[in-house]
């Protein structure tokens, strides 16, 4: 009797295991997420290897991709989160190849080390579209095209805004004591934004006191800013390479009994940052805690989809595709900035 009971128990557990597998497969089919090519030959399957979910910007980027492909019945998107590890992304791409996807979209976590896996994709005849960061491969034909932001232009825009604003309140360049809380060292965004500021500081004679990484996170931004405030007592501009760092830095500034704001002459510390995706950060910008945000547009989905449409129709798209980006501020003193001969309007944020 007892024996039968335990036998039944095992069977039940095994059943549970398979029902578990079965139901997920079923759910997939209704979502058109299934990678099975035999059943849905007309549907174009796109494998998307996202590098992680580390920031609000990244999550908005993922949602944009998912929304763009979900809207069209001809497409199915397979999404894989790499959790910040290149190994996971390489495993994901290999799985896409085995599942027989038609296109691979890759948002790489680092720039190097992609030659062999992208070679495998090419051998299987699957075009690869890069999103956001770029890859450093010996053969540029390993990917079809790239969609993303011009990070150096973002940095240049921000530097131009700082220049116009400080000139408008009558400050001399030598009085600008700037610290740069950088992003993850080696990422394309960090390299471009750091270069934008460093070049401008050299040209204008600003006092760029320190460049130190905040890893694109709020906690690290807070930590780094607190340490910087202890080291220097004359910081008046904090250049954060994303919004999460800026929010952390503002926390640290307020905890030290100082004020984050644009009135540098009255002892405020001015915080500027990048992205413009996080609602809270935009709220901070309206209140003037963050003086200026250079947008980094995460809405890559429609652009990627358009590129795949181009590839499907047999045409060759442009190799590098930049998305349009704005500059947000609640300070009305600066209306326009000029970078490399192009004029950009400032989008005024109001309460």
């Amino acid at each position: 009797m007892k024996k039968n009971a335990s036998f039944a128990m095992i069977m039940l557990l095994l059943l549970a295991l398979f029902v578990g597998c079965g139901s997920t497969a079923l759910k997939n089919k209704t979502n058109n997420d299934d990678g099975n090519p035999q059943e849905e030959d007309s549907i174009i399957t796109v494998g998307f290897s996202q590098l992680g979910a580390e920031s609000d910007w990244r999550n908005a980027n993922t949602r944009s991709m998912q929304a763009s492909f979900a809207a069209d019945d001809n497409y199915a998107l397979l999404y894989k989160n790499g959790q910040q590890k290149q190994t996971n992304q390489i495993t994901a791409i290999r799985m896409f190849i085995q599942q027989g996807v038609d296109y691979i979209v890759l948002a790489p976590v680092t720039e190097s080390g992609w030659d062999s896996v992208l070679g495998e994709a090419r051998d299987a005849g699957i075009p690869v579209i890069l999103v956001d960061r770029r890859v450093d491969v010996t053969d540029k034909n390993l990917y079809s095209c790239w969609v993303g932001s011009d990070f150096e232009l973002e940095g240049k825009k921000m530097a131009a805004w700082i220049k116009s604003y400080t000139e408008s309140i009558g400050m001399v360049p030598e009085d600008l004591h700037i610290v740069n809380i950088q992003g993850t060292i080696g990422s394309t965004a960090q390299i471009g934004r750091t270069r934008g500021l460093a070049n401008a500081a050299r040209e204008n004679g600003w006092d760029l006191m320190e460049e130190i990484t905040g890893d694109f996170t709020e906690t690290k931004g807070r930590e780094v800013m607190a340490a910087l405030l202890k080291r220097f007592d004359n910081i008046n501009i904090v250049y954060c390479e994303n919004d999460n760092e800026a929010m952390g830095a503002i926390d640290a500034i307020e905890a030290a009994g100082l004020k984050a704001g644009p009135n540098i002459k009255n002892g405020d510390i001015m915080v500027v940052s990048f992205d413009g995706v996080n609602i809270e950060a935009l709220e901070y910008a309206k209140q003037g805690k963050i003086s200026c945000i250079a947008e980094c547009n995460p809405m890559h989905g429609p652009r990627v989809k358009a590129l795949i449409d181009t590839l499907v129709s047999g045409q060759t798209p442009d190799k590098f595709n930049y998305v349009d980006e704005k500059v947000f501020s609640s300070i009305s003193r600066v209306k326009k900035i000029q970078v490399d001969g192009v004029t950009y309007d400032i989008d005024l944020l109001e309460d």
Partner: protein
Amino acid sequence: MKKQNEKTSIFNRLSDTNLLLTITIVIFFLMYLGAIIFQGGGFTKPQMLFNILNSNAALIITSCGLSIVMITGGIDISVGGVVALVSMCCAVYLDYHDGSILGSILIALGIGLLYGLVQGFLVAVLDIQPFIVSLAGMFFARGMTTIVNTAPFNVEDPEFTALKDTRIIIPGMGSYTRKGIYVPAYVEIGVIVALIIVILLFMVLRFTKLGRSFYAVGGNKQSALMLGINVRRTKFLSHLICSVLAGIAGYVYFLHVGSGSASHAMGMEMNAIASSIIGGTMLTGGVGNIIGTLFGVMSLCTIQAIVSSAGLDDAWWTGITIAAMLCIFLLIQSVVMAQKKKK
């Protein structure tokens, strides 16, 4: 008379091992079959299985080492740290010091050997709890990795990348893509290394005196002593083998990822323990089998692959399924063992 009794009890344990092994293998095949039926697509291609092997060759090696320590009734949670330390040291040596491949392999083996000697000494001679010893070992390895180099980086040494991209093509197992392009099936060098180690250890455990003494020490230390087995030496050797294997696994991991990073192999020791348990090794010692461990790793990784290919890719989904699977395995094991005892 007493001696006779002990012998039969050890024999009993060994057949428990075989029973658990059978359960593991059957469940693995059922699961893979389930994946083929319900998920289709990728799982019908042999390369899917080879990809699982390619990405987890290092886990197979560490799990084998852990199984041996667990069979003797010990534990070693430093293996993940050792893997990270080995890959970072080799990466720095190859790229910053212009090192050779042979030199980097020696570094990997050296780190493993050193770890084994120290941990084995602390556990076997000084009689400190293996958990505490290897916990300290884990922290030390992780800390040292960051001291050696903080930032993660990819190795660009041409000889190494050539070795990293070496593929062993398996004839007749390739498949055609949707566009009709033939893609050959392959495994990486690491897989071959892992399989050789599995076979070697299987032989050692099955056919040598040392192998039998591992089971004896884990089954009952007192009786093992009475049987004339050197318990200290056996324990020491189990830790030595485990750490050297962790060193080899570190190199295999390094060969797969081609980079050094402080966050490499995070939680690998836990996956290795889970794989050993799924493979039928008991934490209490005396029961276990290397072939079972191999299937334990494969089951764990297949579950991960199934979860991932079903599109449930958030980290917690994998965690939850592995937890559920461990529970089911442990339940089945204890129920089956209870049944057997009654007979």
